[in-house]
């Protein structure tokens, strides 16, 4: 599909129809509004940049949450 890109999300490849912003990316993964932190190619993406920052082909994205732990 023209314009579609591949992004590695938490270690697994995923296809997106077109390069999404971080906000759109979270929306498509049903994570909008959830308390998550995002790392893009090893760098933190601050929440304040979710709307403007656009992902690109081959990006390595980590989406993390807090879980129970000791």
């Amino acid at each position, binding site marked *: 599909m023209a314009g579609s890109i591949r992004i590695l*999300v*938490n*270690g697994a490849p995923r296809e997106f129809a077109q390069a999404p912003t971080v906000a759109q990316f979270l929306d498509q*993964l*049903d*994570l909008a509004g*959830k*308390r*998550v*932190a*995002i*790392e893009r190619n*090893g760098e*933190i993406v*601050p*929440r304040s940049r979710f709307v403007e920052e656009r992902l690109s082909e081959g990006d390595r994205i*980590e*989406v*993390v*949450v*807090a*879980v*129970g*732990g*000791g």
Partner: protein
Amino acid sequence: MNAPDQAVARDALVVAGKAYRSRLLVGTGKYRDFDETRRAIEASGAEIVTVAIRRTNIGQNKGEPSILEVLPPSRYTILPNTAGCYTAQDAVRTLRLARELLDGHALAKLEVLGDAESLYPNMPETLAAAKTLVAEGFQVMAYCSDDPILARQLEELGCVAVMPLASLIGSGMGIINPWNLQIIIDRISVPVLVDAGIGTASDAAIAMELGCDGVLMNTAIAKAKEPVRMAHAMKLAVEAGREAFLAGRMPKKPYEASPSSPTDGLIQD
């Protein structure tokens, strides 16, 4: 409030300039469900609770609440940990994500493991991570071995608390080496908290009687038959141990018995 209760209230644990009434810190792992987690942590009276940082399961558990909804940061001081990290680099990366997740919150628990069997800390990596994290403005509470020199090095690097193990994580073996702990307590000026190895209430009380500033535990509560009840027991034990430490125990006199009742006025023919 009567006088001893007021004394307990005044005797705050101060970490990185913030005062806490409770000297018991608890983990939030290994519980049956979030309801049990919430009830146990409430019963423990803990104000500082640890959480782990993990990849989210995309497309799974959509409706499930997050631990931060069960234990809201408005009520608890959330202490993100680096459990499962084996290098300084991974630990630093994890805590940068945690800080973003928790809106810039700087307090963090550093633990860098040395091997998966013992979960013993890798101290060279822990020291390296502590150095980077302190430089980046984190307030580091460092899980460490009970080596007094390494504990001092963590303090010198700027850690806000050192947290030597009592025994291996999740082992419930209690305080294996009280003498090393004592040396650390005597020589370190930042708070010293025993982290890992507590099995039951008496272990926590002994840690506090030695002069520890606090105790951090998870499995001892979560894997008790009745976690909520054990959480309450731990609260009492930490308070009792602290009070005993402050009260100052009587000297041990192994070769000298001394009756508690008067020796004169005995009824005799």
